[in-house]
C-alpha cells in the first residue's frame, strides 16, 4: 500500500505540449501562419529593449517602447510613448508622442505632447515639446522650446500651470520631494 502511494507520488505526469503545426495540419485544424502570440504582452505592455542590448541605427516603432539598453542613432515613434529606463542610454535624436526619461539621453528631442524628466535622469540636447514635467534632481543641459499643440485638447502655453500635468513636480509635490533629500 505504501509502495503504491510512493509510485503515485513520484510519477511524473507529462506536461501537455502545445499541438505542433504538423499535428494540426493532420487534423485539418486551421492554423495561423503567424507565430503564436503571448496574450500577456498584448495586454498593455510595450515592446522593450533590455539593458544588455546595444543597438546602433534607426529605430522606428508603431507601439509604446521601453528602452533600458543603449541606442545610438535615431528613435522615431510619433504616435507612441517612449520610456527610457534607469539603465537606458540614448545617443540619438528622438521623436515621440510622449517621453518618460529615467536614464540618459544625449540628443535633440521632439515631443508631440509631454516629456517627463525624472529625478536622476540626464538629458543633454534641445527639447521641443508641448508640455514638460521636471522632477527635482533631474539634470538638463540644452534649450527648451514649448510649442503650441495642434489638436483641440492642447493646453495653452502661456499660462504657467497649463504646461505641466498634475505630477510630482507641482510645487507642493516639489516640496515633498525636497523633504526626501
Amino acid at each position: 500500500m505504501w509502495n503504491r502511494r510512493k509510485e503515485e507520488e513520484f510519477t511524473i505526469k507529462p506536461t501537455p505540449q502545445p499541438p505542433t503545426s504538423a499535428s494540426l495540419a493532420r487534423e485539418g485544424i486551421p492554423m495561423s501562419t503567424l507565430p503564436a502570440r503571448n496574450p500577456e504582452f498584448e495586454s498593455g505592455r510595450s515592446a522593450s529593449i533590455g539593458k544588455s542590448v546595444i543597438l546602433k541605427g534607426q529605430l522606428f516603432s508603431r507601439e509604446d517602447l521601453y528602452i533600458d539598453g543603449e541606442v545610438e542613432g535615431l528613435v522615431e515613434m510619433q504616435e507612441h510613448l517612449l520610456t527610457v529606463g534607469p539603465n537606458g542610454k540614448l545617443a540619438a535624436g528622438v521623436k515621440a508622442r510622449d517621453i518618460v526619461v529615467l536614464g540618459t539621453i544625449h540628443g535633440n528631442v521632439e515631443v508631440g505632447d509631454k516629456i517627463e524628466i525624472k529625478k536622476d535622469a540626464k538629458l543633454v540636447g534641445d527639447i521641443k515639446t508641448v508640455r514638460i514635467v521636471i522632477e527635482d534632481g533631474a539634470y538638463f543641459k540644452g534649450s527648451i522650446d514649448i510649442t503650441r499643440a495642434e489638436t483641440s485638447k492642447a493646453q495653452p502655453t502661456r499660462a504657467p500651470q497649463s504646461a505641466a500635468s498634475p505630477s510630482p513636480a507641482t510645487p507642493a509635490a516639489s516640496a515633498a520631494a525636497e523633504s526626501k533629500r
Partner: protein
Amino acid sequence: MAGLPQPADPLRHSHGLEQFFASLGGQEGLRVLDLGEFTQANVIFITSLGHRLYSEDLQQALEQTFGAGEPAVAQSDPQRVQQFLGQVLQFPREHFDAVLVWDTLERLSRPILEVVMERLFLILRPKAPLLACFHAESREDTLPAYGFRIADGKSLQIHSKGRQKLAQSFNNRGIEKLFDRFHSVKFFLTRDHLREVIVRR
C-alpha cells in the same frame, strides 16, 4: 542665523527679478539663459512668457568636474579647470537676450571667474539684462547655499541647500569691478542678506 530664509519660507518679493523681467519689455521669443538649478518652476515661468529657455546648471558642472571640496583648493587643478571651461557657456556671440546667473559667480575661483565673465559679456546682446546674487559681506567661513525658484515676475522662493564655502566674496566695489565692461550695474539689498544685482550688457 537670524534673518536667513528657512526651507519652508514663503515667497519673497525680488526687486532684481522684477527689474529683470521688466527689461524684457513684454517681448516674446527671446533667448533666456538660466545658469542655476534646473527646476519646473523656472522652466514653466520663462517658457510661459513665450521665450526659449536655455539651461546650464553651473553649480552641477562645478561639482561634476571638481567634486564637492573647498572651491579654492578643488579649482586649482589646471587640467580640471580646462575641462570645466571646455564645456561651459559654449554659445555663439550675442546669442542671448537675458541671463539668470543667480549666486553662481561666488563659487568660481578667480581664474575661472575671469573666463566666465568674458564669455558672459560675449554671449549677451547689447543692453541685455543679467541678474546675479551675492551674499552680503560676512566673516563667516561658510555661507548658506540657496536654490532660486521663480514664482512670478516679482517673487522668488528661495530654499536652503545647506552651507558651503564660497570661492570668493565680494564687496560692492568688487562687484562693480567685476562688471566694469558692462553698461550699468544696479544693486538691491534683500532681507535675507543677499545683494541682487541687475546688470546691463
